[in-house]
């Protein structure tokens, strides 16, 4: 089948698949940013057990393959009487891994802040959390816009894990298997998905550059 035939027969399904991918990506990215920020604050906190736990988290989830994590969530957790929906399992896998990378990017963003500024915050009477909130995190975020842009793209690509479980509607990668079991889409079916992934990534990159230019800190 050529592209035109595929689009006329499966156009609506592609659209739904694209929306599923977007929905997964957006929710996972937001959750990953929140979790990654919390992990990062734990990693720099004065409380040692928090640092140890958070460092351990990053080591685990930065290094685990997405599909392995998904298998654990879907097949191993039921033994602990935790039964997740397929969507939830994919969302969690797509959150936990990017959260580890998010924390790494924030840590390197923090390293651009001089200890002097943190001392200044403390000398004004700010508590640890106040100096994190007012001085450290805002600057770490501003100087990590570009890596975060990459993280959003990576999160989108990780969301392709959704193709490994039955979902309806399925995602952009899942749709390819769907088409190839119902018709002969061949590599063209995949090409359409690939174009949609790439197009989205290009847009994300452009927007990321714009944001970076706006919030970059003069030094």
């Amino acid at each position, binding site marked *: 089948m050529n592209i035109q035939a595929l689009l006329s027969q499966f156009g609506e399904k592609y659209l739904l698949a694209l929306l599923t991918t977007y929905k997964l990506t957006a929710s996972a990215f937001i959750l990953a940013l929140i979790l990654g920020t919390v992990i990062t604050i734990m990693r720099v906190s*004065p409380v040692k057990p928090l640092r140890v736990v958070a460092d351990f988290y990053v080591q685990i989830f930065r290094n685990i393959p997405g599909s392995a994590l998904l298998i654990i969530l879907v097949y191993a957790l039921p033994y602990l009487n935790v039964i997740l929906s397929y969507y939830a399992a994919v969302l969690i896998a797509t959150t936990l891994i990017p959260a580890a990378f998010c924390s790494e990017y924030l840590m390197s963003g923090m390293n651009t*802040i*001089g200890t*002097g*500024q943190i*001392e*200044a*915050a*403390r*000398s*004004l*009477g*700010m*508590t640890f959390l*106040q100096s994190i909130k*007012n*001085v450290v995190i*805002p*600057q770490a975020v*501003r100087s990590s816009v570009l890596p975060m842009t990459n993280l959003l793209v990576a999160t989108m690509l990780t969301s392709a894990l959704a193709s490994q479980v039955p979902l309806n509607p399925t995602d952009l990668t899942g749709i390819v298997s769907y088409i190839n079991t119902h018709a002969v889409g061949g590599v063209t079916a995949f090409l359409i998905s690939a174009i949609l992934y790439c197009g989205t990534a290009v847009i994300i990159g452009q927007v990321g550059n714009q944001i970076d230019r706006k919030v970059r*800190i*003069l*030094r």
Partner: protein
Amino acid sequence: MAQEQNKTERSEQTPVIELRHVDKHYGSLHVLKDVNLSVQKGEVVVIIGPSGSGKSTLCRTINRMETIDAGEILIDGEHLPEEGKKLAQLRSEVGMVFQSFNLFAHKTILDNVTIGPREVLHTPKKEAQEEALRLLKRVGVDTQAHKVPAQLSGGQQQRVAIARTLAMHPKAILFDEPTSALDPEMIGEVLDVITELAKEGMTMVIVTHEMNFARRVADRIIFVDHGVILEENTPEAFFTQPKTQRARDFLNTLKGRDK
């Protein structure tokens, strides 16, 4: 006579800052050795000494930017607490001005000055901004209020840092080599602001290499070398007739440098 009486009364008051038998080591380096110092309200104490003598460390222990190994530090008669909410509260009452200004790079000049009162003292935004503008005007950088630190000269940044500290209404201000990172032509403008504060009766501890300034502004000079307070003296006496040989040598090296 009345003046004399006044003086005794003052010395009987609880000192704003008091260090008793303070010791500190960096590994095997003994940076502060049995340091005793008390600073009365309204007093300007200038700490001088060669590089590496421990004078900056001494200044930084006062608000616990550096911890000490032994001894006691009291602010207004109260012991410095451990790291935590109480220490934060105490730090808000003792201002600090750093060698490298340390303004918050992502905030405007105005926000740099308002953030302390807003976050720590919970001052309403409008009030904090009005006071910030007043303080910025006082240090002569009010026209730069909406720029970010990187757009200002070093001298301007340091004056903003002083305004940021003043916004907290501190009992005392610690200056840790406030002009050492400045180009020579900008040192004067910062020292003028500090001199002004001294005239207004602000309690200050100043670490500096600017001897003329020290002589002009100090009520008392503390000479530190190898972590020991070797001499405490009035500025006149210290600069004309230092008691210790080491202070004489130190002053002579400086004279040599100026020629």
